[in-house]
């Protein structure tokens, strides 16, 4: 096979455009680096700088007091409650979305007629903005006229006396419904891609050896899908950890603080004007995401 030789296109360029033919990485890294600095690093450093200041609500001056907000956060019971709610929300949503996603993917993993359309339909919930999904579920779970609430009343799972979103013990489940409806298809699509990339030979060999489909699933499919599952869990987990839209739209962290997550709490603080404390809470969210993701990757040996 002959080797293709790429010629440097410098000959046709004016001197000031000469850098377009440069082999030095700098010009090519510059645009992405600039974007990263403006939209990633600068806001992060600014948040860090803000978190080291105490805001005086009367004078509105931010005074340098490096440990004030951090100590306040550690002593704030609402922060601990919000962390617990965030982990609970993330854990429940992740497990349900993963199990449902895998089951639906197994059902849709077929080349029979019509399955392609079904797979395409799975993408529909993903294109709805989360705030709109929140609105839809807010309506459907309304205590008076919500179609979901009424269905739950009809089958006796819920009493009209305790509307799902107005009750502190059920409100989180109501918010989770919206998240699960919207994001299970994401899991389905990733799992489908994984299933479709599996080699056929091990399954054929297992079939010849007389393995049942359940045995094939647990002994072959699951182990071979472990990397895909790991990455899907990681991506969804990070996304779930910073849930805001559904909580804001459906319960505004209530009743009480029953659905208050770290991001919704920092949002509330932000809207009340205490930007340094809101920044501190955002940084705590970031730190927790980094720690949890790193631990997950180490424990489950996920490599990106």
């Amino acid at each position, binding site marked *: 096979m002959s080797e293709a030789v790429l010629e440097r296109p410098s000959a046709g360029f004016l001197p000031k455009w000469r850098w377009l033919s440069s082999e030095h990485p700098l010009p090519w890294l510059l645009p992405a680096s600039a974007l990263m600095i403006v939209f990633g690093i600068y806001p992060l450093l600014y948040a860090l700088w803000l978190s080291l200041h105490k805001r*005086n*609500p*009367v004078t*509105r001056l931010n005074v340098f007091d490096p440990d004030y907000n951090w100590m306040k956060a550690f002593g704030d019971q609402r922060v601990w409650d919000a962390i617990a709610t965030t982990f609970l929300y993330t854990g429940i949503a992740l497990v349900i979305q993963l199990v449902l996603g895998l089951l639906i993917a197994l059902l849709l993993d077929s080349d029979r007629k019509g399955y392609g359309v079904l797979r395409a339909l799975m993408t529909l919930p993903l294109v709805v903005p989360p*705030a*709109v999904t929140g*609105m839809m579920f*807010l*309506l459907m779970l*309304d*205590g*008076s*006229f919500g*179609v979901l609430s*009424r269905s739950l009343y009809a089958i006796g799972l819920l009493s*009209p*006396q*305790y*509307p799902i*979103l*107005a*009750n*502190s013990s059920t409100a989180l489940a109501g918010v989770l419904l919206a998240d699960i409806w919207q994001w299970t298809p994401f899991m389905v699509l990733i799992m489908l891609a994984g299933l479709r990339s599996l080699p056929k030979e091990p399954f054929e060999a297992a079939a010849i050896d007389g393995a049942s489909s359940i045995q094939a699933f647990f002994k072959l499919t699951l182990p071979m899908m472990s990397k895909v599952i790991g990455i899907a869990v990681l991506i969804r987990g990070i996304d779930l950890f910073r849930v805001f839209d559904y909580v804001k*739209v459906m*319960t*505004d*962290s*209530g*009743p*009480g*603080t*029953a659905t208050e997550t770290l991001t919704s709490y920092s949002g*509330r*603080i*932000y*809207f*009340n*004007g*205490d*930007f340094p404390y809101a920044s501190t809470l955002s940084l705590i969210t970031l730190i927790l995401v980094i720690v949890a993701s790193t631990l997950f990757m180490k424990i489950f040996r996920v490599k990106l």
Partner: protein
Amino acid sequence: MSFKEHDKKTFIIDTARDFAARRISKRDFLRKTGMAGIGFSAFASGLLGSTRPFRGNLGGNAAYAQTPEEMTKWLKDVGGQFKGSKVRYTSEATPPTVVLNQIKGEFTEATGIEVEIEIVPLEQVLAKATQDVQGQLGTYDVYYLDQSWVATFSQDTVDPVQYTKDKPDLAMPGFDFDDFSKPLVEGLALYDGKWVGIPFDIPIFITMYRKDILEKHGIKPPTNFDEFTAGVKAITEAEKANGIFGTGLQAKSGHYSLECDWTAAVWGHGGSIFGKDKKFAGNDEQAIKGLQWYQEMLKNAPPQSTASTWDGQFQMMHAGQVALVNSWDEFFPGLDADDSKVKGLWEPLRPISSMTGVRAVADAGFGEIPNVGHQGGSILGLSKYSKNVDAAWIFMQWACSKEIMTRCTLLGGFAPMRLSSFEDPRVKAKAVVGPGTTRHLETVKWTIDNVMASEPDMPLWAGFSNNEIPVELGKLLTNQDYGGDAKKCMDNVASLINKAVEDAGLL
């Protein structure tokens, strides 16, 4: 009927109800909700309770759109000097803001000054204004300031009375600051003797009752808390099986609406939010009685009350679910609207009086005025950091002028700020059952003049009233915490608030 004409906030709910009751087909349901999708963002803010309970049906009645010649001349001569400039104003969807947004073209046509009105949920208005003043950015020329934020922003606005004196050449002829209702000026606009802005809207608590239900059960319209409580309990007992409750509440935890309800209950039982020692008094004997009364009312309200803001409370009234309500007067025009199931059935009443008498102003702290007519008004403030302060001042005078404020009332049926608007024959002529009715305004005027209450004027109040108080109340009312013990809950709130007040050096 175009979607714009129909009240956006009830459209989907009504459609869903019609579909559930099989009054419309599935096809119509999908078509209507699809149509509603166009106005989803506006609807969303309403359902989230981030807007005021504005129920007036706006209509472009040409008879009202006659700008007086003198004003037109002033707009052209004086405002015309600033042709090409742009005035930015951010507000929640209060009734006058919605009207102003519709008629701002008249101002631009006469002056050449463009007006950009950014309508966002209440908490976003606060965040945007806070950011603007923190950095002294001048992004907004005019601020919408809720009464609970007036103290916080008092240092960031231009005193309009002083500015009139300083720049007489820009003053609108006949603007007349004395025409503003005095209690509104004192309760809303003044802080430490300075006019922080101009009174702009005044939702206020009155009592409202369903005359048909009360008559059916032989209950007299209540005049005090005891009669109100007895009536509420009797109606719940008799009508609960029919889906009708004695009262409806705006008890959404964590929301300012719950704080408003709580404050009204505390004041009505002789308590106050702060004592004269400037310490939180919401945990004293009278205040706890008020909160316990509210807990009792919750047992007689639709269960969705704990998930409802003012918008949800209005829905309960509009849908015929409740019979006696102590809440915002701005609900009234919507109750008489053509699409209302209870058109003409609600009657306004003066706010129920306290059994123990209200606490004296001198015994409350931070400028709080305890009484039974809780006001939730707002002012328009002229930004000190504005880069177009003169153009913005022209706009503010136009927006708060006699003619425009009266037109806002005529288009929406809500309470005016100006004494002359109350007396306007066009306003009086609309005091009949119908969309945008003004038949409640006599009660509103009496309430403003005699029993108007105001929340504390202090820089931390915006935070307390949107966070600590309604969040902890929410925990209590939904049994998330405190085991139903009102005292335990308010003791915790007291410790949080007293510490913050002390930290801020206000004690």
